[in-house]
């Protein structure tokens, strides 16, 4: 029997404590935006560092937990996938917080912004590490409510309120269905621990699993439950969209696997379901992204498509019992997080300095904001899966695993996957072309080059360097996913 270890609860404590402490400090000392950004980044960094012993434990094969030592009453329990997402979220948190040091400087309500960021990630971590359905639900709500508020953060614009409201309504319905599912499970088994120990699910538990899958499906934007996503990502501040797209909606996907498998759904069935739904996600996401004129909505649809790729890989792994395919899926999750965050943050720079929202308005970005154009183009090329960037490596692993499955469904899936990655070029490339097309000549000569604040430049450059580094030398990252 392993001892209960406080390490599991530490990141969560740091983030929630940080959120409260930061708010109080900001009120008392009248801190400025940049101070808050630096402090928030510090909190995220400390949380990231506090994960190191946990990683060591999990890699040694243990399942560290926090709470009472009797089985079934642990409060938090760490697993590999959850830890991976936690680490990605904290790492991106540092980048996003620093970036906000300049990005949010024109908003009046920055004091609430940073605690909300911390709560968002804290909720996500709690949800991923929760060892029973009750805590899972609680943290899921914490995460969702922070997300609703952050999406509608620029409340002076109608569109942000509309998007936030849509997200709120759909998200709440999702969590309500989850709650119903939890009630069903409790009715049959009388307990809420994950994983449940007793054997085959009865009708109530099966209904409960279905409800939980639908509820988490809404949160992960699985087609046809994705309708809130383009609005939410399109209207939220870019820094928030980056976090939402990179980790939040992916965390519920991972949670879906954990919950469904923990409640006794056979892996092959879940795999088949994920596989079939992934085709919808890819095709619909890419197809609709093709016709978008609004850059952030385009990125949002691309997120739906990329969720489809991740589901595809996870589905292959579950259905054909290929652990390497699961790893490939997690690896794509990691690379997608880095690439999509870079894309959203670069887009944010364009919006901040040049007030661009439409794809056509991105013309001439390379002249005005060369750095943002470069990182944007890198991230888009990465998402399109062009070697030697990070996206290509993940695609390569998924393809190899998919062929290892050697089944007609996997081959059909492979064909759909490849057609989709071709289809996706149809919107990634024109966007890159737009970035590097000179702006139409206006009166007053060529547009001047604008210097980017280092608060934005440093996180962007770091993330862009990561895209190349992971692509050229994926070894250590791959080991990390394992």
């Amino acid at each position, binding site marked *: 029997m392993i001892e209960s270890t406080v390490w599991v609860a530490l990141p969560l404590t740091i983030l929630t404590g940080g959120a409260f402490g930061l708010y109080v400090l900001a009120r008392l000392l009248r801190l400025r935006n940049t101070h808050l950004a630096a402090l928030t980044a510090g909190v995220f960094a400390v949380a990231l560092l506090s994960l190191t012993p946990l990683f060591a434990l999990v890699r040694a094969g243990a399942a560290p937990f926090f709470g009472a030592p009797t089985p079934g009453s642990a409060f938090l329990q760490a697993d590999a996938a959850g830890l991976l997402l936690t680490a990605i979220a904290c790492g991106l948190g540092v980048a996003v917080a620093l970036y906000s040091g300049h990005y949010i400087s024109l908003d009046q309500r920055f004091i609430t912004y940073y605690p909300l960021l911390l709560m968002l990630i804290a909720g996500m971590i709690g949800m991923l590490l929760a060892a029973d359905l009750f805590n899972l639900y609680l943290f899921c709500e914490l995460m969702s409510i922070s997300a609703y508020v952050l999406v509608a953060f620029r409340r002076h614009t109608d569109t942000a309120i509309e998007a936030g409201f849509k997200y709120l309504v759909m998200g709440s319905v999702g969590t309500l269905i989850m709650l119903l599912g939890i009630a069903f499970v409790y009715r049959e088994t009388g307990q809420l621990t994950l994983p449940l120990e007793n054997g085959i699910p009865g009708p109530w538990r099966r209904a409960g699993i279905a409800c939980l899958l639908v509820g988490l499906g809404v949160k992960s934007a699985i087609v046809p439950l994705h309708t809130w996503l383009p609005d939410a990502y399109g209207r939220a501040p870019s820094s928030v969209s980056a976090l939402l797209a990179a980790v939040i909606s992916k965390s519920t996907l991972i949670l879906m696997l954990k919950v469904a498998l923990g409640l006794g759904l056979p892996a092959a069935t879940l795999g088949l379901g994920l596989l079939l739904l992934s085709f919808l996600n890819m095709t619909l996401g890419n197809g609709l992204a093709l016709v978008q004129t609004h850059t952030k909505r385009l990125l949002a649809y691309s997120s739906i498509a990329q969720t489809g790729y991740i589901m595809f890989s996870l589905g292959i792994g579950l259905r054909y019992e290929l652990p390497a395919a699961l790893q490939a899926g997690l690896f794509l999750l990691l690379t997608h997080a880095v690439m999509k965050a870079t894309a959203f943050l670069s887009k944010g720079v364009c919006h901040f300095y040049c007030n661009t929202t439409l794809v056509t308005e991105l013309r001439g970005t390379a002249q005005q904001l060369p750095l943002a154009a470069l990182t944007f183009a890198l991230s888009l*090329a990465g998402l399109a899966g*062009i*070697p*030697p960037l990070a996206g*290509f490596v993940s695609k*390569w*692993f998924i*393809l*190899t695993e998919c*062929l*290892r499955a050697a089944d007609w469904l996997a081959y059909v899936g*492979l064909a759909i996957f*490849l057609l989709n*990655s*071709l289809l996706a*070029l*149809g919107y990634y*490339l*024109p966007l890159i*072309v737009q970035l*590097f*097309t000179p702006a139409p000549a206006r009166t007053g000569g060529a547009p001047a080059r604008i210097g980017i604040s280092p608060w934005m430049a440093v996180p962007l450059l770091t993330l862009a360097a990561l895209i190349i580094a992971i692509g050229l*030398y*994926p*070894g250590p990252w*791959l*080991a990390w996913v*394992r």
Partner: protein
Amino acid sequence: MAINHMLLLTILGAPLLTALGLVVFQKKVARSAGWIAAAGAALSLAAVLALLPALRRDEISALALRWIPEAGIEFGLHVDWLTLPFLVTEAVVTLVAILYSWGYHQVDARTPNFYALLLLFAVGMSGTTIADDMFLFYIFWELMLIASCVLILVWGDGERRGAVALKYFIFTHAGSLMVLVGLILLYGETGSDSFAVLRAGQWALAPGLVTAVITLFILGFCVKMAIFPVHLWLPDAHTVAPMPVTIMLAAAMLSMGVYGILRFPMSIFSAEQLLPFAAPMMIAGIISEVYGALMALAEQDVKRIVAYSSVSQMGYILFGLGTLTREGVIGATLHVIYHAIVKALLFMVMGLVIRATGRRRIGELGGLGRSMPVVAVCAAIGALGIAGMPPLGIFTSEWMIFSGGFHTAHIGLSIVTLFSSLLTVIYALLLVGRIFVGAPPEGLKVGPLPKAMVLTTIAVTVLLIIEGLWPAPLFDWAEHELLLLLGGIL
């Protein structure tokens, strides 16, 4: 052996580091960028030539470093006789294109980036030929696409360059994906992504899978070769690209598709396995030959005429490969080398004509032979070269290809391809004749020509003549290459 490793790394490293240096210090080197880039390309070429003695001594020049052990991926480089013709061609063409750019390219603040991208394009091509591992191969394979696409996008002529770059990228990337699936199917069967394992032959595929893999490879590489009907990207890309890029695309990049077919289907599968694909390859080759030649006759833009001639010439090569005979394959390899030189020469001449007159439509040109006699002589030699006039090289290679055709059961196809070569003579002579002979149309002004462009053109003409008169070393390379193909039975 250590020397060989150094040389292998120099082939890639010299242009790569030069490109990096140009980008990093671009403010300081804007004026001297052309010289620096040429030095990088020359160093790469020198390294290639320095590997020749080792190859003759049958020393294996290979390098394998750990890269991604988790997935069994190595960083492997390897030079053998199959690589050599392509590697030399690519290195020579790159040097020529860069020297030509000295005159063609107007120096401005972005010049270092232009040369850096040309070098990256070259790294992509030489990397493709010397990569000894699937993952690395594919990265280089796409690098050449990306670098050339950016060159077209930023430095191309006309307003449509964005759309053209997009079309070029999507077409070729679709082909690349087919190649990628083929590679990964092989990887799944052999469990290693090293070509050394493929060469060793200690593996077997299910018969259905063999057909699938060969089909994927041939289709994928045919896109790069611009075989009808997947040639659609070529005329636009060649026309819009700046002339040095066009030279590299037409003279070197197209033959990377040939390299792919030789390296994958033809060297890892046996003749029996490939036999079902012989006739389709020959027929596709003939269709490309005839279609490319007819379109070259029909086009008005001088650059498009030469571009369509590439479709036609790649058709001959595919026909030669499809014969699966000793003569056909030697002919195809020689054709790659000769076509590279001739096509580079023709594009260089067209670049000079366009630069001097500012006109591109063939109907608006004429009588230039009097005002630019040297260029006219070069053009005439180029036209005779592509028409297959002895003793210029293409005569030899086409002869071999046709004779390969007559060694197969498909005599009818061989007769068709023989006669379709008449079309080449017509369009080549018409092209040069209408530009350089006759009365100049009204208002045609001939501007001054940059020395660098003219001198490079003359140098390439001389090279063409030398190659034609002294083909023995090239034959020797092709003979050695045959031992690596189809189990060495040819």
